[in-house]
């Protein structure tokens, strides 16, 4: 029985990056799928991407039946996302049918059915051999019509006809007050329902997606952030982390010979991730700067994300302690990207990160500090985002260094945002300031270091005109 079900239940790729992973392979093939959400949450784009990717990536022609936008509007809107609808139409792979209903011209004079719509759809599907259909937004049929019962039963008939026809159909629906859609479409589409959400928390807008229902299939049940950029929609399936990246045995320097010596390997592994924690003023950024400069000295491109200081300020401040970034910036080895964490939502930050990664192809990435991101999301979201980010970095064998602010000297082990990062970091260095004999003593302790022996000593250091200088000698 179970086997039989597996055979008959086929899926079709969604064309939305990340969604196939959440849905365990895509949408149910040949069935209707309801996408609902409030105005402006990306329903039409979602549907269009499903259709267009279906054509370009999976060779499945598609019909777009638009009840709201004219073909011209659609063409213009999707051109900006790099989707050339005109070309696809001329290639007979896409058919756009605009259903114009002039309310003021219509009079109801008795019983009717939606046979006109059926015939148009049938004609459109058959003329290009469509496998995918989008109805955006069929509920607009209801506005202004008197006989709701009749329309409802017709729409039910339409969905079962589409199912019989074997086309995978996306139906979009505007979010209703008490139900998922205004006309209760979710009652008719029982196979797969996806809810899109656009919400503003603490003045930061985030888009989210949730699979409300997916009959007969496993699916992720979380709310997943998604983003819309110039490549369309992508969902961030943070749970799809695969632990199958390659690990390098090459050793690189941290930028501080004394610190390198604290590791049995004389440095850290290439492509590993390092976390630096510490209270305010424990010189986390300086350590990060040393790391960045050493990467530049190896002629490896370095990407520095600064969430607290502007590039200019960072360069100026580091110059005072002998860390000169100017040359590295001029020779395009160092790229500093500064932005306020609260400027945009988490996923937008992640998007910028990903884009810069793709553009610059850096060998080293520094995020200073990662704890700033906590201010714009809860720690589980940040944690999820970091998993995904680290995943990307690891796959690309990029050296990663994150700094994180802790608030109380001894709570680093119980801080939830550190928890999120520390398990992902290969090396964890904690920095501390202590007052001894009316003097501030800076110290560094390697908390953990995967696959490398390391010094167990707390090492004191001072900050000089030439950067960090260790005052205690290392014992291995």
């Amino acid at each position, binding site marked *: 029985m179970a086997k039989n079900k597996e055979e008959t239940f086929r899926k079709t790729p969604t064309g939305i990056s990340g969604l196939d992973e959440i849905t365990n392979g895509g949408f149910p093939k040949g069935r209707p799928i309801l996408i609902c959400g409030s105005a402006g949450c990306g329903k039409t784009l979602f549907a269009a991407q499903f259709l267009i990717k279906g054509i370009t990536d999976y060779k499945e022609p598609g019909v777009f039946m638009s009840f709201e936008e004219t073909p011209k509007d659609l063409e213009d809107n999707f051109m900006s996302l790099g989707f050339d609808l005109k070309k696809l139409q001329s290639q007979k792979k896409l058919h756009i*049918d605009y259903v114009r209903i*002039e309310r003021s011209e219509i*009079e109801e*004079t008795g019983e009717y059915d*939606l*046979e006109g719509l059926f015939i148009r759809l049938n004609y459109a599907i058959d003329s290009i051999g469509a496998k995918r259909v989008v109805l955006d937004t069929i509920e607009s049929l209801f506005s202004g019509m008197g006989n709701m019962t009749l329309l409802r039963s017709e729409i039910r008939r339409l969905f079962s006809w589409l199912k019989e026809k074997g086309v995978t159909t996306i139906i979009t629906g505007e979010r209703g007050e008490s139900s998922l859609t205004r006309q209760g479409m979710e009652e008719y589409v029982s196979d797969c329902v996806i809810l899109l959400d656009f919400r503003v928390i603490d003045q930061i807008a985030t888009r989210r997606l949730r699979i409300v229902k997916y009959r007969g299939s496993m699916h992720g049940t979380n709310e997943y952030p998604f983003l819309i950029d110039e490549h369309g929609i992508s969902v961030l399936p943070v749970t799809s982390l695969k632990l199958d990246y390659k690990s390098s045995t090459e050793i690189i320097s941290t930028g501080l010979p004394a610190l390198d010596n604290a590791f049995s390997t004389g440095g850290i592994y290439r492509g590993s991730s390092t976390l630096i924690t510490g209270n305010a003023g424990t010189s986390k950024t300086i350590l990060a700067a040393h790391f960045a400069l050493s990467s530049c000295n190896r002629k490896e491109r370095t990407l520095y994300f600064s969430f607290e200081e502007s590039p200019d300020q960072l360069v100026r401040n580091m110059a005072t302690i002998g860390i000169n970034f100017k040359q590295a910036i001029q020779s395009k080895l160092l790229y500093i990207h500064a932005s306020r964490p609260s400027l945009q939502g988490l996923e937008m930050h992640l998007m910028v990160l990903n884009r810069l990664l793709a553009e610059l192809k850096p060998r080293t990435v520094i995020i200073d500090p990662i704890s700033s991101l906590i201010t714009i999301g809860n720690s589980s979201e940040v944690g999820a985002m970091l998993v995904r980010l680290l995943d990307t970095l690891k796959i690309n064998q990029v050296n990663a260094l994150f700094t994180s602010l802790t608030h109380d000297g001894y709570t680093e082990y119980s801080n939830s945002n550190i928890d999120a990062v520390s398990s992902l970091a290969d090396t964890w260095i904690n920095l501390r300031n202590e007052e001894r004999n009316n003097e501030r003593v800076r110290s560094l302790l390697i908390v953990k270091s995967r696959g490398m022996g390391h010094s167990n000593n707390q090492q004191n250091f001072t900050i000089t005109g030439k950067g960090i200088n260790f005052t205690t000698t290392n014992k291995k």
Partner: protein
Amino acid sequence: MKKKLKDKSIIEAKLVLKLYVSGMSSKSMTAIENIKLLCDEHLKGRFELEIIDIYKNPKLASEQHIVFSPSLLKKLPLPQKTLVGTLSDTKKVLKSLGITFEK
């Protein structure tokens, strides 16, 4: 009521009507019957009626923006009107077509 309808009808100009039906469905047949009856009764010689089966002309359905079936399109005189349904509500049909009666 019935008497009133048999009064002499007044229309501004010749009516150009197109009735879009879907095959031989009962609703389509009712609509055809109703419009023929109405034309015979009130529009002798002052109308042009074309009955189109959208099953046979699916492309036309799209071009003429037909969604509901049956649909009666009043092309002329302007403004255009679309009367959907079986045309059983005679009063409404006459009003929508702009047909009035001498008292």
